């Protein structure tokens, strides 16, 4: 017993310098705490992004502790499934990992006469992952484009197919780069295509995966793999590569600070789209859920799921969309 007591004191002393990595991102303490209101009941359906799938579930679970009789059903088959469901009225919440395309907004307006309202609910950084054994230090977006794209719209000169072309040595020199990506219904696919591939086309050799977690699994089990996915999916088996933006030379890691500062080149907002008529208040239940999502409690679920919580400045803008009767 005594031995452990001493070990414990030592542990306390050493604690500060221990090598266990940094703490997760903290939620902005300036965000409001969530306040319960009375008489909330009813049903909500959420159909949309699978990146937001787990996060929506966390929010639904958290919201249920305040309002036990509010039922939230969650379906997540990809961002592209959100607009049709919102338009058909089969869902009240349309989580999306990319902004709606003009055609989707048009289709919504055609039915309701006003555009849908997008509420930013979290930040995400898209990461380029390699196997944990891969010695590569960082990549530029041009290189990422030359690795993934067949058209190289970002201006890469030659297609990169082996790790040797990226400067790796020994057994890596001749190892072909094995590509992992998402399927085309996913918002992650669309975002990556637009921002990392300069709207070019993916190579045919990209192994399209049905979920972000399977991209990570693929990269974990394939030493010569590279893949892209939300940074929230990072595990111990993969490494998140720092990136340099187009035309820049500075390397930025995918950390919350860099995303807030806007310097990490592949960061994006995650949205929940709702149907709000101008001049009328939002459906009370939907409004309450969004208030919960934008509160400290809701944003701590964002951290739990590995995404980046909103800052007070962003939250102030978003909460206006919920509260205002414009």
């Amino acid at each position, binding site marked *: 017993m005594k031995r452990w007591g001493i070990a414990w004191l030592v542990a306390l002393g050493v604690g500060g310098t221990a090598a266990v990595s940094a703490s997760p991102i903290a939620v902005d303490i300036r965000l409001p705490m969530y306040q319960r209101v009375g008489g909330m009941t*009813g049903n909500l359906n959420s159909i949309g992004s699978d990146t937001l799938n787990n996060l929506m579930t966390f929010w*639904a679970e958290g919201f249920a502790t305040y309002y036990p009789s509010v039922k939230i059903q969650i379906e997540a088959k990809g961002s592209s499934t959100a607009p049709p469901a919102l338009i058909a009225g089969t869902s009240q919440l349309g989580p999306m990992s990319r902004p709606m395309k003009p055609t989707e907004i048009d289709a919504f307006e055609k039915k309701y006469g006003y555009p849908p309202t997008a509420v930013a609910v979290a930040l995400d950084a898209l990461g380029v992952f390699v196997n944990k054994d891969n010695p590569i230090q960082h990549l530029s977006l041009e290189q990422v484009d030359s690795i993934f794209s067949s058209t190289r719209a970002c201006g890469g000169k030659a297609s990169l197919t082996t790790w040797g072309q990226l400067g790796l040595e020994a057994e890596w020199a001749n190892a072909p780069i094995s590509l992992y990506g998402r399927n085309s219904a996913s918002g992650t696919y669309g975002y990556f295509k637009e921002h990392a591939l300069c709207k070019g086309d993916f190579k045919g050799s990209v192994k399209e995966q049905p979920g972000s*977690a399977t991209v990570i699994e693929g990269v974990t089990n394939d030493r010569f793999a590279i893949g892209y996915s939300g940074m929230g999916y990072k595990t111990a088996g993969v490494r998140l590569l720092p990136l340099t933006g187009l035309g820049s030379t500075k390397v930025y890691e995918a950390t919350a600070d860099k995303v807030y500062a806007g310097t990490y080149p592949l960061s994006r907002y995650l949205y929940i789209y709702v149907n709000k008529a101008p001049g009328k208040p939002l459906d009370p239940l939907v409004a309450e859920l969004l208030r919960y999502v934008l509160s400290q409690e809701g944003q701590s679920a964002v951290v739990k799921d590995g995404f980046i919580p909103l800052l007070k400045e962003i939250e102030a803008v978003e909460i206006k969309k919920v509260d205002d009767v414009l």
Partner: protein
Amino acid sequence: MRPRLNLTSGRIDPERPSTLLRTLILSWSKDERSRRVTPRRVVSQLPIQLTGCMLAIALLMIVGLMGLILCQGLGTFWPQPLWELTTSDQGRYLGLVHRREPIPADDHAQGARAQRTLYRIGNRDVYETDFVWINDQHILTQSRPTEAVVVERLEWGPWYGFISDVKTPEGTVSGNREQVWAALLRQRPSARQRTRVIRRIERRIIGDLNDEVEQHRLAIRRLELRGRLDTPTEQRQLQRHQHAIKVLEQRYARIADSLGQQRAQDQAYRVVLTSIDGRQKELPISAIVRIHQPNRLSWCGRVAVYADRLREFVFDPPREANTEGGVAPAVFGTVLMTLLMSVAVVPLGVLGALCLHEYAKQGPLVSGVRIAVNNLAGVPSIVFGVFGLGFFCYLIGGTIDRFVFPERLPTPTFGGGSILWASLTLALMTVPVIIVATEEALAAVPNGLREASLACGASKFQTVWRVVLPAAIPGVLTGTILAMARGAGEVAPLMITGVVKLAPTMPLDHLWPFIHLERKFMHLGFHIYDVGYQSTNIEASKAMVYMTTLLLLGIVVCLNVTAMRIRGQWRQRFHSADV
């Protein structure tokens, strides 16, 4: 002939080729002459060997698959020791061994046979990640502290560390680890009791109250939709509903108050957890799901923890976006959907087959229909899903909503995916299985039986209904077994006709009308897909995927065994009737 290993002598004998398989088959055949091996016999027995080979391959695949699932799944819940490690780079870790692998050979400095281990270090809320790879050479010391505790929590996954304080309104226990541990154990039953009370208020009392409010709201909405709110009777009705809502809301406020007090009381009982590197975390005792000290657990204690985890897995609802807790709603949804599907598909298929085989005049038209039915079995299941979505959900469901539940629009009642539509879609998908099986069974009923019945003066219908169909029942049940197995394991069509990741309510509960076929539901097959493909902490949830697969297999086996027993009873009945 290639020389084979002689099994009995254990050496290679070019004269007498022999394989395990052939020895087995020959001993089964019990034919003395066939044991004399001549080249001609070998050739003539080739087909027998082939059948044996195919059976062996099928067995191998089943055993291999089951073995993989069992190995990966069953070990998941077994409590493992917590290792305390110090590494050469000043790191201190406390965690479970998750996986080991050799370090790839290119890392020359390590030598070819170096190993590394993936440790699960938990504490996801204070560390950035809950898994860490450690090279075995970097480990300086390794021990199993007896006081290390595994705390399974409602949120943020497990905590591996120590317990430093237990705070209650009566005072704080801290210091001696043994005393703190004992104090925490003493507090656990009352914490569990408080959780039960709170959950009862939340789920039952408030839930029912809100359901009542909802009913009144819908009644008001119905009155509004009828558009004549000026008549005195309607005015009276309206006021009655409004008054009822007001009364219910007052009651709600009172209950919510007491709930708030209960919660505040509950929050006063707290525990302070410490990690190996001295970081602390305080949480209410009721947020603990399970605690144990794995390094001092006896064998019985381990079994108890295992059993408790298994119980939670099968009987509790999921937590933490389905990556923890149990799968009870998914089990329930799977079983109910399969049963609903069987109820729908068996009459449909059997009556269809009866018409096709007994009544319809055999000709090109009937042959065409038969071919069409058989081909239906080859249509990809996702196509059935799309059909179900368009036909059942949007067309039929949408129509029902417009005429029966207009007050609930735009929120769909039957107009979206639901367990009813999913079951019917699967029923359509499996109908060819039943038709084909029933037709085969009907064809196997001897014609003499029909003729005898007709000769006794029975009508055609009586013959079919009382004589032919009962004799064909075992065949029909075989078809049902196949259909259920296919239906229970199907995921693709369900994904668009009513399965969701999280369904807060079950399709069966204590509220009128008890069975709610319009609700969406959870399904084990989809659960596997969802947790395996979508969860952000894939390393931690992989085991959950295997366990869920095992459970799904178990359920299919259970359903099949039940159907087989029924079939056995029917068969017996007919054997005794023959005598």
